Every structure is written in structure tokens, then in C-alpha cells.
């Protein structure tokens, strides 16, 4: 159990080992650990930010959906109103048209009747004259009796 030259050898070995560890072992390990710590911290921060953004987006989406629904309801309401309006207008227009067509028919019929009436009158007159001519042919001159015929025609 004596102190001897082994001490020197061990001391040298110790110094060399520590130097090696300090230069080639510790720095790369520490670098990897610290880099990973940073990456994890960044990842957590990113996740939190993503969560917040997601919440925000969800809120916005809900709001937009609500807006869209209200707008759609409004549009439908307007369309309904417009549809009933159009129906009313068309009904109205149909009525007027019918009245107009009926009135026109009436007028045409009236005119036709008047024309036919006139024709008939003329024909009856002619017939009367012919009848009278035939009656009087034997007794009177047609020209002398024409005032009576005229009177008859006017009475018809």
C-alpha cells in the first residue's frame, strides 16, 4: 500500500480523460439535448397558437353561418312576397283583358246587329214594294203611290 509512480500515470490518464470528455463527449450531447428542448418548447408554443387560431376560426365560421342563414331567410321572404305580388298583378291583368275582350265582342255584335237590321229593313222594304207593286200593278201606277211606300218603309 504505497504511493508510487502509478500516481503519475493515473493523473495523466485523468487529465486526458477529462480533456477528451470536455472536447468530444459533452458538447455534442449537450447540443442535442438543448436543441431538442428548444424544439419541444417551440412545438408546444405552436400547438397552443394553433389551438387558439382554431378556436378563432370556429367562432368566425359560426358567425358566418348565422349570417348566411339570416340572409337566406330574408331572400326567401322577399322571393315569396315578390311571387304573390306577381300573381296578384297577373290576375288583375287577366281580369282587365277579359273585360276588354268582352266589351269588344259586345261592340262587334252590336254593329253586326245594326248592319243586319239595316239589311233586313231594306229587304223588307223591297219586298213590300214588290208586293205592293204586284197588288197595284193592275190599278195604280207605281210612281203615283211611292209616297205611301216610303211611309211604310219608315215605319218598319
Amino acid at each position, binding site marked *: 500500500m504505497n504511493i508510487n509512480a502509478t500516481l503519475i500515470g493515473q493523473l495523466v490518464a485523468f487529465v486526458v480523460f477529462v480533456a477528451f470528455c470536455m472536447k468530444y*463527449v459533452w458538447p455534442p450531447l449537450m447540443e442535442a439535448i438543448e436543441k431538442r428542448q428548444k424544439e419541444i418548447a417551440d412545438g408546444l408554443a405552436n400547438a397552443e397558437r394553433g389551438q387558439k387560431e382554431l378556436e378563432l376560426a370556429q367562432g368566425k365560421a359560426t358567425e358566418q353561418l348565422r349570417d348566411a342563414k339570416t340572409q337566406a331567410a330574408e331572400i326567401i321572404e322577399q322571393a315569396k312576397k315578390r311571387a304573390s305580388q306577381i300573381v296578384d298583378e297577373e290576375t288583375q291583368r287577366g281580369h282587365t283583358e277579359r273585360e276588354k275582350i268582352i266589351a269588344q265582342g259586345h261592340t262587334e255584335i252590336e254593329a253586326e246587329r245594326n248592319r243586319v237590321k239595316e239589311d233586313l229593313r231594306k229587304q223588307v222594304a223591297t219586298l213590300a214594294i214588290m208586293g205592293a207593286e204586284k197588288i197595284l200593278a193592275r190599278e195604280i201606277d207605281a210612281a203615283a203611290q211611292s209616297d205611301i211606300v216610303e211611309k211604310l218603309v219608315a215605319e218598319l
Partner: protein
Amino acid sequence: MASEYTTSEYIKHHLTNASMCNTDSGIAFNKACADAGFWTWHIDTLAWSIGLGLVFLWFFRSVAKKASSGVPTKTQAFVELVVDFVNDNVTATFHGRSRLIAPLALTIFCWVLIMNLMDLVPVDLLPSIAGMVGQYGFGMDPHDVYMKAVPTTDLNLTFALAIGVFMLIIFYSIRMKGIGGFTKELTMQPFGHPVFIPVNFILESVTLLARPLSLALRLFGNLYASELIFILIATIGYFQLPLHFMWAVFHILVLPLQAFIFMMLTIVYLSLASEDH
């Protein structure tokens, strides 16, 4: 195992280092080195400690080379666990920035731990193998082949570590406080009057020197004692098995604890050295 030995010879054999020295007639080993004095080398201590140190450095270096900041492999996770454990202790104790302290603490902890763990290898295994290799390989008497496989039971190693730490204590003291500050710390405390300079100096020197001394002796004492008990247990025949088991289980606690204490005290001493009072 000890059939040809007396018990005391057996114990003595197990507690002797294989040594090597340079004599007038060339390189000599073991008993021939009895008179060699200081220039004797404990080749088993040197070989085991440097070999185990290289294992530690190779393992950590191979992980460090491939270290990725992504998902770590299981090996990398283990190494990072150790590194993180050491780093936590260093940052909790050593205030100030130093690129040396943390790798130093890691080296001390891992190296001392691996060397301590050699204590759990059955006490006869490595000496027997070495004896057989010596006997059949080199034609030596197996009783003359020594193999003390736990390097931390060699005072040379523990003192080498402690002296290394001591030099760092001096270095940090001078770097942080200057030579003047360091001298003042040695002479003007605890009594701040010039009259007390010799008293102060004696007190402070003892305090300073007690640190490496206690570091070295604590590690050596614990490991030497536990190794000695292992050897003693090995001499009592078949009853050694349960005793051996219990003692080994106990040392699962003691061995890492000693490595941890050595590391922790190193950090504390260096932290004290680099702080102004």
C-alpha cells in the same frame, strides 16, 4: 480456492497489486520490485482504470457522435439521462459559467462508478484467470501473479483523482480571486488582523489540504474495506454464498453512492473555490 494458502496469505495475495519496475537487469515484476521505491508501476491498476475509462469514453463518444435532437434511441436516452443527472447537479451547485466543471463531473462520476463496479466481480475470478494465464502462458508460479481488479482500492488512483481536483481548486481560486485574493483568503481568515496571519495560514492550509485528502481517503477507504470484506467472506467456505449475495446487494447502493459523493464534493469544492466570500 485457498487450498494451498493460509488465510492470511490468501488475503495478502488478493490485496497486492501487480507491479512493474525498471531495475539494473531490465524490466522486473512484482517481488523483484520490492526495492524499486517510487518508480514502481501498478500495472493492474493502470490497465483496469485506463481500460475502463476508455470503455466509458468510447461508449459516450459513440453516442455523442450520432446524437440527434429528434427522437433519441434507447442508448442515447440512457446517456442523456446520465448527462442530464450530472448537469442538474452541476447547475444546482456551481453558480457561474465554466465549460470544464460539467464534463469533469461526468468523467469523475462515470469513471469512478465503472471502476467501483469491478468490486462486484467475484473476488477470485480475475486473479484466477490471471494466475492461469501466468502459469500456462508464461510459466510463472501462480502465487506470484497478482491481479487487483478494482482500481479504486489503490491509493495511487484515488490520490491521482484528488490531486487533479486539488490543482483545479487552486486554479479556480487564483483565476476568480487573483493571486492576491487567494493569498488574502489563506492569511486573513478567519481572524482579520495581521497578528493572526500565521494562525490563519495554518488553519486555512489545513482546510484546503483536507479537501483532496478526504476525497482520496474516503473513496479508497470505502472500496478497500468492501473489497476486504468480500475477500474475508470468500475465505469461510460454503456459507459465503448468502453472505456474498447480501454484501453485493448492499454494494449496489454503496458503489454508486461513493462515485456520486466524489463527484458532488468535487463540484462543491470548485464552487467554493470560485466564489468570493
